[in-house]
């Protein structure tokens, strides 16, 4: 039975790796290295992914830490507020940022009203908007596993440290933080992987002006049909993703052990 139902999936994997068989020549890879546009998009993607990931950690870690300290009821509400956006379509959340960040949107209204700026700040159709959108969409992916790991830390461990005379700062950095590192690292890698392959948010919030790998692939498939080139880029992206994912799995096992 298992074999019978495994067949379509194996077939799918065959399809997923189809592009590899096309890459029997290295010509497309050489082409990739020789074309500055591809390299620039690659660099762009890496930079945005890195910034969005760092922003995620900077926001996500305090949030998860704060949620750990909440009482039952407040904690449940906080969890619900993190889980709900996780399930709402990425498309919807990305679109919402157009509404929020647009020239007549909430943020610009507030800025104008407070007198911080005289003219609307343009958040949309540039890297800033894309980064904000991506950080927002991916935040639950970091917060949920991190929170799960923090919950597992035994309070008595922290009390023991305190009873031995350690000041709060030392307890945090020497006891608490090291215990959360595997989960933090795993979550960070996961967010980074997701950033690399992101398509919807850069396409909408970037307005075609912030090209990332996925949008380049879209162009190569749908507009100027150069399937071999797209396949070569896909293969590289896939290998990078799987490598990072392998590292993630190792860290994740460590985090849940």
């Amino acid at each position: 039975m298992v074999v019978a139902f495994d067949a379509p999936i194996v077939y799918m994997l065959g399809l997923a790796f189809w592009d590899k068989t096309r890459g029997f020549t290295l010509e497309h890879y050489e082409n990739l290295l020789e074309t500055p546009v591809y390299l620039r998009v690659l660099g762009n993607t890496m930079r945005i992914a890195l910034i969005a990931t760092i922003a995620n950690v900077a926001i996500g870690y305090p949030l998860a830490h704060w949620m750990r300290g909440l009482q039952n009821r407040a904690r449940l509400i906080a969890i619900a507020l993190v889980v709900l956006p996780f399930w709402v379509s990425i498309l919807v959340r990305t679109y919402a940022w157009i509404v929020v960040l647009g020239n007549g949107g909430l943020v610009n209204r507030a800025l104008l009203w407070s007198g911080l700026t005289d003219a609307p700040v343009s958040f949309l159709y540039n890297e800033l908007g894309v980064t904000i959108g991506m950080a927002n969409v991916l935040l639950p992916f970091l917060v949920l596993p991190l929170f799960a790991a923090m919950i597992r830390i035994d309070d008595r461990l922290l009390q023991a440290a305190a009873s031995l005379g350690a000041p709060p700062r030392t307890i945090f950095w020497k006891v608490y933080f090291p215990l959360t590192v595997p989960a933090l690292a795993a979550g960070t890698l996961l967010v980074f992987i997701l950033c690399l392959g992101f398509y919807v948010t850069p396409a909408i919030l970037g307005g075609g002006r912030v090209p990332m790998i996925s949008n380049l692939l879209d162009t190569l498939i749908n507009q100027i049909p150069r399937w071999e080139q797209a396949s070569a880029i896909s293969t590289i992206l896939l290998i990078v993703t799987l490598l990072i994912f392998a590292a993630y799995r190792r860290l994740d096992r460590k985090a849940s052990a």
Partner: protein
Amino acid sequence: MIGGSPWARRLLATVGVLALVFLMVPIVIVIPMSFSSARSLTFPPPGFSLRWYETFFGDAQWMEAMWTSAIVAAVSSVCALILGGLAAYGLRRGSFAGRDWAEGNFMAPLIVPTIIAAIALYLGLAKIGLLGSFAGLLIAHTILNVPLVMMVMGVAIREFDIRIEQVAWSLGASWSYTVRKVMLPNLAPSVFAAWIFAFIGSFDEVIVTSFIAGKYNTVPKKMFNELILEVNPTITAVATLLIGLTVLALAAVTVILARAGRLKQTLV
């Protein structure tokens, strides 16, 4: 954390609340905007009106997209449920060489960046001549949703005591009788939850659909295509409807699983 100065705690709480606000802002803003009477996207909305909902429900193209979405989601989620459920059962109960490999296989669509899945499916479907066909769309959505079903069903099957099945068999129940009368009633809440996840997964899918659907329009695909061209307040109404659907689905899952958990406790 225990200890810590009040000042540090207050700072942490502020950051925490701000982070939650940051997470919820898109959802909270879109809903009132969809009832705006203004032609442009200004916040706060100058007046209340249902005009964008009227535009949406009065538009033949949107309605057609909604039907396509609903049919694709309904069919592909059931296919994914059957495939993923059987796979989860086989992987949990069976012990055979390459089990880990098979499991990785099934879960792959969740890990591989969607854009790569989209390209692979595009090339694959083009090869077998199903690119742009309805069947191709159904196949793609089914494959993408199998991992979701497996995650939910895997947990449920692991928690379901194998001895109950063994008792049924030893009492002479046939395989299909065991499935129908013993397993399904016990696993029903998880089956339902998995189905809802798969349905939502399909209903929200945009990237793969944009690549392979050809002339077929689903709601997210149409929304995405319109967004790239111009921002149109009708989309705010669509977004609100999608949020509503997600909230309903999540609420249903929570209630069902909570009730099942309580049921288990009362039985024990």
